Structure formats: C-alpha cells, structure tokens
C-alpha cells in the first residue's frame, strides 16, 4: 500500500494530493505539463522537500512532517522511479545495470528469468549505449524489479517512443505490477496512455487533484468544466443556466433524443481525421467539434447531431445532474471528491 498525503511548495503554486494506491493497483496521474505531477512523484521518492507530508509505503513511514518527524533518505525508501531518460549507468553492462542495487540478487536464475520476460536476454553483455530506446526502458524496468522496490513510479517514461512500443511496454509493466503486487503510479499527459495503464485515474491541474476515479467514470462524468477541458471536451453548449460538455468522440450524426442531447448547428469546417471525418459545428454562440464516420455536409449547411449523455455544468463550472429536457432521465451520477 502506498499512502501519500503531500503538500509541496512550488514557485507558482502549492502541489496538494492525497493518494492511496493498493498493492497491484495502477494509478495514473493525468494532467497538463507543469501541473505538479512529477513533483508529487519526487516527493514520494524523497527528492524534494515537502512542506507538509505523511507518506507511508508497505507499512513503513517514509516521510512525516508531524511529530515524530521522519524523512527517510532516498536510498532507504525502496521506491522505484522510472523517468523518460531510463538512466542506465553508461559504464556498466546491461547485466551489471540490472544487478546494480545492493538489494538485487547475484546474477543467476532470477536474472535470466526476468531478462527473458523482458526480452533482453541477448543483451546482457552489451553496453547501454548500444541499446535502442525501448530496450533501454526494459533494462531500466528490470533493474527496478530486481531491486525489489516496494512501489513503481513511472514519470512519463515512454514519451518519445512510438505508439505500438509504448503499448507493449505499458502492458509489460501492467502484468509485472500485478504479478509482483506492488502499487504503481504512472504520470502522463496522454489520456490514452493513462487509460491503457490505469485502474484509477487522477486528474491534476495547478497542483490540485481535481478528480480521482475509474478512468471511464472520469472521462464520462467529469466533476467540473476544467476537468472536462483537460480530458478533451472541446465544445461547451449553453442550455439555459447550464452548459453541456461536448467531447468530439461522443457525438453521432442524426436526431436520437433518447441517447442524449440533440443539437442543430451549421457546419463551419470539415476535414479528414484518421479513418473518418472531423467537423466544426456552430451551435448558436458555441463552436463544437465532432468526430464522425461519414463525411459531414459542406460548410454552411445545417446538420443535426446527438451528443451522447453529455456532462452538464452549472455557472460555477461544477458538474450538475442532467436537466429533464435533455430528453431522458438523468443518469445516476457518482462524483468522487478528492481528499479524505
């Protein structure tokens, strides 16, 4: 169990979070660049000094600012941190890198078994400079696992790798986390990476955890307009005192009132996107973007679309239950509020 209640002062704002990650659970910290995601991981790893913190891992207190104050140095924390730069020691072979940690076993059966799981058994005698980016990440991951870290913290590790390799590595980490039953935290600013990895998703912005929950819950029921914007809701359509959030991928063509909010707009622009089309639609004052399988009408023409069960927000930006006139009874809404 990783239990981190942390406040770290940064120049622009204070990063605050209270996270609990169970053994074998995978939490994704999602947020824009500069939201404080890395700072949180560094506080858990003991690399930055928190203003106030209570961090526990596997029954040990790593940091406590309340008396009796505790601040274990990084080398006593058994926290595995994997960054974008895998940080292999360039003067050591892959084998020596894997067995670097004092707590790692001597090269032997365990090393060979892990190397074959990671697909690096033919590289053990190579120097890190010879490895490709993906191989280097596999070695770095293996090094953390052999060090018997009590948690894995992944700080945007796969930025810069291509999508299929990223997916392979993410799956590999997921299975190893489950097998070893350690809590894992992935920091990312790619929502799809977060969804592919995580059991739970926390949205961070300006140092605050805005929402934490299951990935589909967070994506479909953002607790605030700000969360919706971060998740990728591009259009916000006013309806009376409320605003409906429109995600480009939650729009279908046609008038289907029992599936959500029906909107009539004027096509402002259309362009190919992936295997389908993307259209900008002007609905009153608002501009919404939708992903459609079929080619939209040419600009200037009217188009009717249905926004599938959009989230609704009040004037204060907070999520509210769907109004009755949206065509169907409001779905049961569960909003988890961050904090205890």
């Amino acid at each position: 169990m990783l239990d981190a209640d942390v406040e770290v002062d940064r120049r622009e704002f204070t990063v605050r979070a209270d996270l609990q990650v169970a053994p074998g659970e995978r939490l994704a910290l999602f947020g824009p660049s500069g939201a404080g995601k890395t700072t949180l991981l560094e506080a858990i790893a003991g690399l930055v000094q928190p203003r106030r913190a209570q961090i526990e891992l596997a029954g040990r207190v790593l940091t406590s600012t309340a008396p009796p104050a505790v601040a274990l140095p990084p080398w006593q924390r058994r926290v595995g941190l994997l960054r974008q730069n895998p940080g292999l020691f360039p003067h050591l072979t892959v084998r020596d890198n894997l067995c670097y940690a004092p707590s790692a076993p001597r090269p032997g059966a365990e090393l060979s078994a892990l190397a074959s799981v990671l697909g690096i058994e033919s590289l053990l005698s190579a120097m890190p400079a010879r490895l490709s980016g993906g191989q280097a990440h596999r070695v770095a991951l293996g090094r953390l696992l052999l060090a018997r870290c009590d948690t894995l913290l992944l700080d945007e590790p796969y930025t810069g790798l291509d999508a299929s390799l990223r997916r392979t590595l993410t799956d590999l980490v997921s299975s190893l986390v489950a097998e070893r039953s350690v809590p894992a935290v992935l920091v990312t600013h790619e929502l799809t990476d977060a969804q592919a990895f995580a059991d739970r998703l926390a949205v961070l912005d300006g140092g605050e955890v805005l929402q934490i929950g299951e990935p589909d819950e967070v994506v479909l029921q953002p607790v605030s307009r700000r969360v919706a914007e971060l998740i990728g809701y591009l259009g916000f359509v006013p309806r009376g005192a409320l605003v409906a959030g429109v995600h480009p991928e939650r729009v279908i063509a046609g008038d289907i009132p029992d599936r959500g909010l029906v909107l009539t707009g004027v096509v402002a622009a259309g362009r190919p996107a992936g295997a389908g089309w993307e259209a900008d639609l002007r609905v009153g004052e608002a501009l919404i973007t939708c992903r459609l399988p079929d080619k939209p009408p040419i600009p200037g023409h009217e188009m009717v679309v249905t926004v599938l069960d959009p989230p609704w927000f009040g004037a204060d930006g907070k999520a509210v239950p769907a109004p009755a006139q949206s065509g169907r009874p409001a779905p049961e809404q569960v909003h988890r509020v961050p904090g205890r």
Partner: protein
Amino acid sequence: MSVVGAAVVWLALLGPVIALFTHLSGGAIVTALTSPGALDPLVTSIESGLVTLGVLFVFCTPLAWMLARGRLPFPRVWETGVLCSLLLPPLVIGLLLVFLVGPYTPIGQVLAWMHLSATNTFLALVIAEVYESAPYYVLGAQAAFASVEPRLEQQAALLGDRPRRVFRRVTLPLAAPGLAMALSIAWARAMGAFGAVIIIAYHPAGIPLQIYTTLQETGLASALPYALVLLVVALPLPLAAYIWSARAGRRRRG
C-alpha cells in the same frame, strides 16, 4: 589545401620538439646523463611531482566536486578565486609565496616550530608545484564532475546506494577519464614548474632548475639533454591518460 594548412600549423606547433631532436647527439646525452649526480634532479622532480599529485587529489578533488555540483554558496566567487590563481604569473606566485610561507611570516614560524622550512627545501618545492598546478587540476576535475549526469546519481541513490557508494560506483568511474586528464595536465605543470620554484625552492633542484643552471654555467648544448629528460618524464602520463580516456569514451559509446 585545408589539410596542408592544418599540417603547417601543426608542424609549427611541434617545431620546438622537432628542434630538440634534430640538435641532440647521442654522445651529448650519454655525457650529460652519466656525469656524477646528473640524475638527482630527475629523482627530485619525480618525488615532488608525485607528492604534488597526491596533495591535489586529496584536497582539490572534493573542492572540484562541490564546484561542479553547486554545493557552495556564491559559486562565482569560488570560481573567480580558482581563476585568479590560474592567471597569476608563476614568477609572481613565487614572490608572493615568500610573503606567505617565508621564514618571517606566521606560517613560516609555525613551520620553524615544527622544525620545517618552506625556503629552499623539498617542502618549498612541493608548495611551489602545488600552486602552479592546482588551478589546472581544479578546473579540469570540475569539468569532469560536471559531465556526470546528476540524474544518474539520483537513480543510484534510489536503488539503495548511500552517497559515498554513489560517489564510488557512479560519480567517480564516470568522471575518471576527465579526472585522469586533469591530473596528468597537473603533472606536466608540476614537472615543468619553474617561475615559483626558482624563487622559493632553488634547492633542491628539479629538472627545470637543472636545465636553467646548466644553461647558465655551460651553455645551450649541455642543457639540451636535460630538456629531453623533462619531456620524457612529463609527457607519458598525459599521453597515457589521453589514450585511456579516449578508450573509455569509446567503450561507453558502445
């Protein structure tokens, strides 16, 4: 054309070395090196050079590390201090050392109380060599440490290494080629130290002073063999360090 131009400049830079070899005769070398006591300055130079390297390594390595890692307040002030000692002409260093460690100074009196003297002694020679070579070592070692990625040290700590072990297992091996280069440059400076040496350590004579006194007493031709000795002593270490650090770099690049 550009290769020819580069070759001309290169040969011009090597000119003095070429001149040395074209003006040496085997007989002169044998005569010079077999005369009684001719090799004493060589021994003196090597001994004082080794002590100097030891002093530099023990005292200046931590300073260089702290400079490289920004562990010191007002880093510019510290760096300027090192640069000052680099920019002082050796002759001036010698003059000032008289005022610092000469017999009538507080330090000189402390030394006298310990039955030591920093004037015309082996200790004086070492002090002069340290002052002439230290800034080269500090700046080189600082660059060597600065080239070690701090994230790697952080990673080593997270894997369970205490700072001392991180230094031994990561920082030092990664900085070693640069440190070796810095140390060998310091060695060459110490071997050739003359300006400060001639003022506070005329005795015991090392090779540079031997060259100077031989030149004064018997002329150019008889001084040349000692110049060859100085080169032979001063150059192998830097060359070896250069070759080793190039090989270490190749190995790391794979």
